[in-house]
């Protein structure tokens, strides 16, 4: 997947009236293949996909411009992902490195995922080497700073986070070609962070907001997850699960896809318990099938108002 694309041939620039086939160039970069995969593996997330498409198109056009001998500076691709919990910020960031490497923007495309702990030191003079080491590890790939707002602690003016931010900014500017920095976090707290660090906000060209998933999208995500785990829902269980998700969405601390993942994990527990309790002989299908009762046993149904509640 992340084999680097062939470099632009080092020959004479094409003459001004020469033509190039866009489709052929797209073929060599396998852009459509990559975008298809993105569509297949990620449900919803329209703004994210649009942005990835734009970046892919820009990198393609840049390659063509290079062939005509036109100037093609590398765009700054530092990004900020904001959104509610469980909307896929980290997952997309993981894939971003791979995709940018496939497009030839990054040389390696490895992902280095860090939090405040990995960047900020314990004592004076500890922060700079620590941050630099992380940055060096991420060069050639993507540095994902999860919950980036923890870097800045306004309540403590002697906090070393500020020092870390300064080094980050300097690196982001000086090594634009070697490194893509992605900040991820919840929208509201990210806003506060940017307000107190205007330098950071202006150095990040792409602010991508991850929307909450709709019920249908969540169901499709659940479908993908179950498929990957090689489980399937029985017919009545599907309706039950849809009701479950609808109920869960209205409850507090709903974390989109993460809640779905947890729900599926609990379904697997209940299925296992049911199978073990039943005893007897088992066929392959039994191991894969999640029944209506497994879903209905959830606490979400018993906590819900009586009208929607199923049987315990």
């Amino acid at each position, binding site marked *: 997947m992340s084999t680097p694309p062939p470099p632009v041939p080092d020959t004479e620039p094409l003459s001004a009236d020469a033509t190039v086939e866009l489709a052929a160039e797209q073929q060599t970069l396998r852009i459509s293949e990559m975008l298809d995969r993105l569509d297949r593996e990620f449900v919803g997330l329209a703004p994210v996909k649009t942005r990835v498409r734009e970046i892919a198109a820009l990198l393609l056009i840049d390659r063509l411009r290079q062939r005509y001998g036109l100037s093609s500076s590398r765009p700054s691709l530092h990004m900020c992902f904001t959104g509610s919990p469980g909307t896929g910020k980290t997952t997309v960031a993981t894939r971003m490195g791979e995709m940018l490497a496939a497009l030839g923007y990054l040389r390696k495309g490895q992902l280095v995922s860090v939090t405040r702990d990995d960047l900020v030191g314990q004592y004076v003079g500890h922060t700079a080497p620590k941050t630099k080491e992380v940055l060096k590890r991420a060069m050639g790939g993507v540095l994902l700073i999860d919950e980036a707002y923890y870097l800045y602690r306004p309540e403590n003016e002697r906090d070393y986070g500020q020092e870390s931010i300064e080094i980050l900014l300097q690196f982001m500017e000086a*090594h634009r070609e070697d490194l893509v920095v992605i900040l991820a976090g919840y929208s509201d707290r990210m806003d506060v962070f940017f307000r107190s660090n205007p330098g950071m906000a202006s150095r990040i060209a792409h602010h991508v907001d991850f929307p909450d998933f709709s019920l249908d999208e969540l169901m499709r995500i659940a479908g993908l997850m179950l498929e990957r785990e090689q489980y399937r829902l029985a017919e009545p269980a599907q309706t039950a699960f849809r009701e479950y998700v609808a109920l869960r969405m209205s409850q507090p601390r709903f974390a989109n896809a993460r809640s779905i993942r947890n729900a599926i994990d609990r379904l697997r527990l209940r299925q296992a318990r049911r199978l073990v309790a039943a005893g007897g002989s088992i066929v392959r299908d039994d191991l894969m099938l999640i029944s209506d009762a497994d879903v209905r046993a959830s606490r979400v149904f018993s906590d819900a108002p009586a009208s929607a509640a199923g049987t315990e």
Partner: protein
Amino acid sequence: MRITQGTFSYLPDFTDDEISAQIQYAVDQGWAVAVEFTDDPHPRNVLWEMWELPMFDIADSSAGLHEVTACRAAYPNHYIRVLAYDPSLGRQTTALSFIVNRPAHEPGFRLDRQETADRRIRYTLHPYAADKPVGERYAGNGARAGA
């Protein structure tokens, strides 16, 4: 007198691209890359000063080149070398070492003869640069190049 030490030392000085390619090779082998500098050119001076810490888990040569550039900016008239350490069990030693920066003017060595008992002679190499204190050895002698 041009110091030849480590790998590639009989080749013309590397460009940044060539340095980068060598570092990338080392990284791809799983070797840790380190940058070191010194202004003592004696061949027995094997332990140079470390520039920052060795880079054990970088993926791309740009990190190594970044340190080389930073070290050059701080010590433009020192010898700077890139080391690659192979940590695999059974080897655990320097796998590659090459000079990436050298002073503009390298005055070379004097041969000292010391007479000892029984008309024996002991020979020793004395770098002319070592006559000056550490840190001043090559400073500003780019202007005297060829002297």
